[in-house]
Each structure stands twice: as C-alpha cells, then as structure tokens.
C-alpha cells in the first residue's frame, strides 16, 4: 500500500522561491537606468556625509572660522567651489551641509513614519470614533501647505536643528497616518486575517505578524520618495531664515546668503543649490525605482 505524502512543503523550498523573487526584483531595478543613477547619487551623498570630517579641505571653516583675506575667491585649485563673503571654503561648507540635510531628512521621515504609522494602525484597526477623530485631524492638517505650517511651528519653537525636525515632522505624519490606515483597514477584511483571528491569534501578533508585513511595500516606496522632499523642506526653511543658524553650514541658508552677492559671486549660490537639487533628485529616482520593483501594479 502506497503512502500518501502528507508532510508540509519544506521551509527550504519557500526560501528559494523568495530568493528568486528577490533576484528578479534586483534585476528589474538594474534594468532601469534612472533608478541606478539615483541609487548611485544617494550612495555617494551618504558616504560623503558619513566621511565628512575626513573630507573637509578646510575643517576650521565649519566651526565659524573667518578669513577675510580670501573672501569671494572664484573656483580655483585651492578652493574648488570658491569662497564666500568671509573667506570660508564653499566646498567645505557644502560637504558638511550634507550631514545636516541627510540627517534631518531621514530623521523627519522616520519620526513621521513611527508617529503616523502608529496612529494609522490604531485608526484602521480599531475604527469607530477613534478612527473618525484621527482622520479629521489629518484632514485639517493637510489643508495647510506644509511649508507654512512648518515655518510657523519652527519659528515658535526657535532655531536649532531638532526644533526644525520636530516642526517638519508635525506637518508630515498625517500623510503616513492616512496611508497606513487605508492599508490596515483593507487588510483587516482579508480572508487570511479573519482566519488567523478565528484561530485565536491575539491582536498584537495579528497586526505585527500578519498585517504589517503585508503593507510594507507602499510605505517604503513613499518613505524613500519623501526623504528627498523632506530635504527640500529643510533647505526651504533655511532659505527663508528659519531653522539651522550659522555657523552650522546648511545648504538652504547658504543659498539665502548668496542671493545678496548675485551675479558677481555666482559660485556662492550654484554649488549649494546644485547639492540640494542632486539630493532631492537622488531620492526621487530611488523611490520611483523601488516602486517599479516592489509594486508591479503601478509599473509603466
């Protein structure tokens, strides 16, 4: 009498299927030239930011050292990006500024993700009046342009990098709360979640093991796109004169100062401006690429 094989598929097989899917995703990502360019710029920026202390041509300039004798030098071998009104090396300031921009951009998105995500899970899972209250608050906050809201909060809190991060986070969490809420509410109705619940799985485990892993994709795509826009908002706040104050070098603040020296000293504006542009572009391309890879429905 033959034996029927009733054992479950071995874990090894499932893993190889997953590895194959991952290999395919990496292949798709590499197929898209723009995503690879985005990834390359992002990697360069992050490396520069991490290694900044060792890369600075004139390390004293980031702590506020001035050198009026070499003010407004055009780009040269000694100063690749030229110098500013007090003789500081622009390349040094731009390199060090990458730390401020990337750190605040990434921190803002992480905080917004944690706060918005938690509120979104509560709203989507619990529903009822809690859902209603959280969603109406996000509605209200989203009718105010984020730049104006962030400016108002940052101005009231005072200057400083952390106050700026808090201000931007306040404007940013509602979008994540809405996204996560919609995804959680949809997944809650799915058969596999209902089945797990019937089997007696508790709410924490249900959300942590069965719901959240299934909503990671759209959230990750949005977060990677948003890092670029958060960097842009940081620079915008610096540009209007709110946020990080000199001597800490910040790209937007540098650009605002450079405005006063146009057009003779164009290099004081071109290099920090290009740095902002490249940072935003890198994360936009990266996010677009990730969306193509992770979310096949929206692929071109």
């Amino acid at each position, binding site marked *: 009498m033959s034996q029927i094989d009733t054992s479950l598929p071995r874990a090894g097989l499932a893993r190889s299927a997953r590895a194959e899917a991952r290999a395919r995703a990496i292949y798709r990502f590499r197929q898209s030239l723009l995503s690879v360019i985005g990834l390359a710029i992002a990697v360069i920026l992050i490396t520069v930011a991490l290694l900044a202390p060792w890369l600075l041509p004139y390390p004293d300039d980031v702590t506020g050292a001035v050198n009026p004798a070499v003010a407004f030098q055009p780009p040269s071998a000694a100063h690749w990006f030229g110098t500013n009104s007090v003789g500081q090396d622009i390349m040094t300031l731009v390199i060090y500024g990458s730390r401020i921009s990337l750190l605040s951009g990434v921190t803002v998105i992480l905080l917004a993700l944690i706060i918005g995500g938690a509120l979104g899970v509560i709203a989507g899972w619990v529903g009822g009046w809690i859902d209603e209250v959280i969603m109406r608050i996000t509605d*209200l906050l989203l009718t105010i342009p984020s730049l*104006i*809201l962030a400016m*108002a909060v940052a101005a009231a809190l005072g200057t400083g990098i952390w106050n700026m991060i808090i201000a931007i986070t306040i404007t940013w969490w509602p979008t994540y709360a809405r996204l996560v809420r919609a995804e959680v509410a949809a997944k809650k109705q799915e058969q596999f979640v209902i089945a797990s619940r019937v089997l007696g799985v508790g709410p924490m485990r249900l959300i942590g093991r069965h719901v959240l892993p299934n909503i990671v994709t759209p959230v990750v795509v949005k977060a990677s796109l948003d890092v670029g826009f958060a960097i842009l908002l940081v620079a915008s706040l610096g540009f209007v004169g709110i946020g990080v104050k000199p001597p800490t070098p910040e790209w937007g603040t540098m*650009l605002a100062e450079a405005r006063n020296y146009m057009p003779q000293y164009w290099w004081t*504006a071109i290099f920090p401006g290009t740095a*902002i542009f490249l940072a*935003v572009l890198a994360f936009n391309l990266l996010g677009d690429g990730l969306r193509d890879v992770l979310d096949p429905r929206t692929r071109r």
Partner: protein
Amino acid sequence: MLWYVIRRLLLIIPTLLGLSVIVFAIARLLPGDPVGLAAGPNATPEVIASVAAEFGLDKPIPVQYWNYLTGLLQGDWGVSLFSRRPVAADLAEFVPATLELVIAALLIAVIVGIPLGLLAAIWRDGIFDYLTRTVSLGAIAMPRFFLGLLLQLAFAMALNWLPLSGRFPLIEFPPERITGFYTVDAILIGDWHALGVALQHLALPALALSLSPLATILRMMRASTIEVLQQDYILTERALGIPSWIILFKYTLRNAVSATLTVIGLYVSWLLGGTVLVETIFDWPGIGLYSTQAILGQDFMPVIGVTLVIAMIYLVTSVIVDILQAVLNPKVRLQ
C-alpha cells in the same frame, strides 16, 4: 447638482472652524514671546503688560479664541502686532497678488504640460518621450528658490531681458485697482503699457513656480493617456477605421484630462505654499512674503489669517475640481 454644490460649500465652514482651533492653538500654545518681541527689547514689565492688554493677550486662551472667532464673523481678522494694521486690509491687498501669480503658474503648467504629456504618450518610448521624462524628473527635484535664482541670474542679470524682482516698477503707478490683479485691471482700463510691464514682472516668478506642477501634469497626462489608449473601445475605434486624430481628440483627450484634473486640484495647495519661496526670491508682495515676515516676527494674527485664506482657496478649488470632474466624466456621480 445644485444641492451637491451647496452642501459641499457649506461643509467648508466646519472645516475652517476646526482649522482655526488648530492654528490658534499652534500659534498661542507653543513657546515663543510675541508680546515681548512687539514691545521691544528694552520694554519694562508695565509696557509689556499694556501691549498684552491692548491686543487682548492677557486673557485666557479660550477667551482669546472666542474673541477672535466672533471678530472673524464680523470681518475683523485681528490686528498685526507690529504694523498695527488690520489683517483683513493687508489680506485684501496681498491675496490678489498671490492669486495672480498662482493662476499664471497654473496656466503655464496646464497649457504646456497637457500637450507635452499627450505627445509623450503618443510617441511612447521614443526620443521625445525619453527626453521629457528625464527633464520632468529633474524639474520635480529642482528647488523653486534655486530655480528662481537661476532665472534671475540668466534673464534679469546676464541678458537683462526681464525685471529682477517686484510686481511693478517703484517709480510708476500700477493700474487703477478694480480686481487687484494688475494684468486684469490693465486690460479692463485698456492700459496696454501697464499690461506689458505687469506681464514682464510676472514672467519669471510664474515660470519658477510653474515648473514642478508642469512636470507632474506632464507625467500624469502621459500615464493616463497611455492607459486610455489601451482600452478596448479605442481598439474598436481603430478597427472601425476612425482616423487617429479623431480618436485622440474626441475619445482619448477627454478621459485622460479627467484623470489629470485631480492632480491639478491637489497642486493648488502646493502652489499656494510654494509661493512663499518664490515671493521671497522675487520680492513679490503677496501673502507668501507677508506670512514669512509675520512668522519671523511671531506676529500670529496675520499667520492665522493667511492660513485660513489658503485653506479656503484650497477647499473651494477641490469643490470646483469635483464639479469639473463630473462635467468631463458622466460616470462620476455627485452625491
């Protein structure tokens, strides 16, 4: 339809009410000392107390809010702590300037973005498509203030074609105020010289503001046109031998634009926020510049006023977009 519009417009009121609570709370509960700033660095406690009393800032915050709200309903939007001018008068002066800029930018974005997106979709994967796609990705990442600076550098400083900043030359009188829009007023009174001058001043800031929405509209338009072109009914029309330009203009365009419209509506709020930076760069006397100055001075009455006006414009726009949506696409039912 009419009832729908009325109900949607009425729903704006509770939203604005809720918003006024939130903005008031942000303005008043956060640390910061607007009274001290307004009274000056050498003010004695008595002076500070009298300034606080003058603006009613010595009362509990709920009372302050109630006074603000009842004033608002009577057209009193509060008074600026610094200029001591009524906020309502300032807004009446600055809102048209900003609207003129935003509408000009939106017009550029729509007039250029929709045809380019359509062409990119028709010549899909061709050189034109690739070029516009790459350039539009760059355009979205371009900071508006950096773009504004580059435009000034090129067209105002190097080439000297257009004025550097401002809305009208300081030595000339702007056209007589009818709507507050210089271009519209100049046309209404038939002052063609003033129209030319106003347009010259409008060109660079509108361009700087329009690039990012232009790129987004282009991308949206391309995506939705491609989607429509893949529908079965288009295939049927092709099979029936209907000329491709009729298919395009009669059967595709309308559906594709309807999807793009939502994005355009969403962009109005973005544009109103974006004017802050563009107005700062170009010294454009609108609510962006006004609110920046107010925020930097923690002069919160103007800030609350600007926020409420922007929210109102945004909410009215979304009603208009929904109505246009229903006009373009009979499948959308207004409920």
